[in-house]
């Protein structure tokens, strides 16, 4: 698996072959507070780089989740929909959002860690 890269919108992304796994950063979860709702893209749908690919809501606010790369949604993490608190507990591990079969790996952002 490739090293973790980050988008400016506080998503993280890793790449394995041509399948990218995307989630939101720990920093994003800390800004949002207790997350109580998550919505994921539909499996089989196509998402465009920097387009909306989900929603997270805390008690404070609703926030769109963007995809840092284009691709076809091949898997989604239903467990965070059932228990959104998981996103706060393990945002950069078990609480990934969706997997994409990507078209162009050069789209992957080059930011190693935007908060260091």
């Amino acid at each position: 698996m490739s090293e973790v890269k980050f988008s400016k919108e506080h998503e993280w992304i890793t790449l394995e072959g041509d399948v990218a796994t995307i989630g939101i950063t720990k920093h994003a979860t800390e800004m949002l507070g207790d997350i109580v709702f998550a919505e994921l893209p539909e499996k089989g749908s196509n998402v465009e780089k920097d387009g909306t690919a989900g929603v997270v809501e805390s008690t404070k606010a609703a926030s769109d989740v963007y995809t840092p790369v284009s691709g076809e949604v091949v898997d989604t993490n239903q467990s965070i929909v059932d228990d959104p608190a998981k996103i706060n507990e393990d945002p950069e591990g078990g609480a990934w959002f969706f997997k994409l079969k990507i078209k162009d790996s050069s789209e992957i952002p080059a930011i190693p860690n935007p908060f260091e």
Partner: protein
Amino acid sequence: VRFHIQQDSDIPASTQLNNQICFAIAARHFPPGHRLPSTRQLAMQTGLHRNTIIKVYRQLEIDGVVEAIAGSGIYVRDNLTKREFTKSLYSKDKIKKAPDQEAKTVIDNLISLGFTLQETREILNNEIEWRIKCGSRIIVSTPREDIGASMLIAEDLSGTINVPVEVVPMEELEKIFPLDLKNLKQNCSKYSFLMNEDAGIYDDLIITKIEEGYLIILNAACKDKDFEILSNLLGSKFKMNLDNNRSLIAIQGPKSVEILNSIINGVDQLNFMTGNWFDSDNQKLFVTRSGYTGEDGFEISISNDKAEKFVENLIEKGAQLIGLGARDTLRLEAGLCLYGHELDINKTPVEANLRWAISKSRLLNGGFIGSKKIMNQMQDGANQLRVGIKPEGRLIAREKTKIFDDTDTQIGEITSGTFGPSVNGPIAMGYVDREFSKVDTKILLEVRGKKYPANICALPFYKKNYVKGVN
């Protein structure tokens, strides 16, 4: 503190902002020494041009409310005198107008209505006399949450300030508020509203019986028009007394009585919505059993130099610090209305399901502003009603979410919506057409272009625990 500028208001945006900053200072959201937001921040928050903000800040500086420290920012002055503050609260636009011209206009208007000059004189005389009589018995202060601070203002007024003292006849107050004021006991508070003739709610407020009269506490978010409306209705001159040396601390929740009583012995003897003076650590504190969280709780007015230590003491005894966002969640769980969300000028107390706040005797006999509409709606039913709404699943439907029936017809709108931690699920309040207002009615909520099922449910979402029968 968030400032909200009403673009469609007759009051210029700069005056609105000026007033709101003054209120924030008076309500101690901006205590002395506090740095005001930068003009850039405020421009972003309010949508006003930076030049407007700069203009308002300059005016506040001229008025002596704030001082600019070069290279650092604008700070709330800590040596505000009551006079300077009072002065800055009044709109200067009015003074600029030629008074004789204004008088001519009023007289012309009365004559055009068919009154003779003699009658006009009598009408004006009566009006002026009545207003003088009313004097300054009504004291207006900022937020509903700050009963304690306002009690102090009243206390101060009775002793230290030379305010013309006349008693407002109770009957006159009752023309405005649908309350049974004669039977309101001293130091007791009631929730009420300012209404127009159509029973539209200008603002909600708390009115408290104090020794010398009544105390009216308006919202902090403060409609700029509140003063104007009240003075039009009552004709009294409002005075605001800024006590710079006090802070207000709210402690809320089921354990608040236990925690606070260990510091201020005797507060457990207060009933909800009452207050009194207590001695603690060699100082006099005014404590009210109040708040807006739907839980038992207290608000303590305390001198600034002791406030920090007092809070630390509370934390030591088990209290925790929270923000206003948390309070908003709590009040929604408790089914409490917030002005600008559940309440506005287009909603009546009947539609808002606030009939409980209108005294029974007044409901029967009327005679207050808006009473006709209220009595009609009581008889015939209102077209729309405020309801509790529970989305199915985990979906959160926030303010302005449209509500539909199963035929795709819009039947209402959400006014507040969030996730309720105590009920562990999404909750909302909103208005729906009357025929859909029954508990368990199925409705649809449109969120991000899709429709999701939800149910009308009873309020509150979380049972409150107010203490009423202590003594």
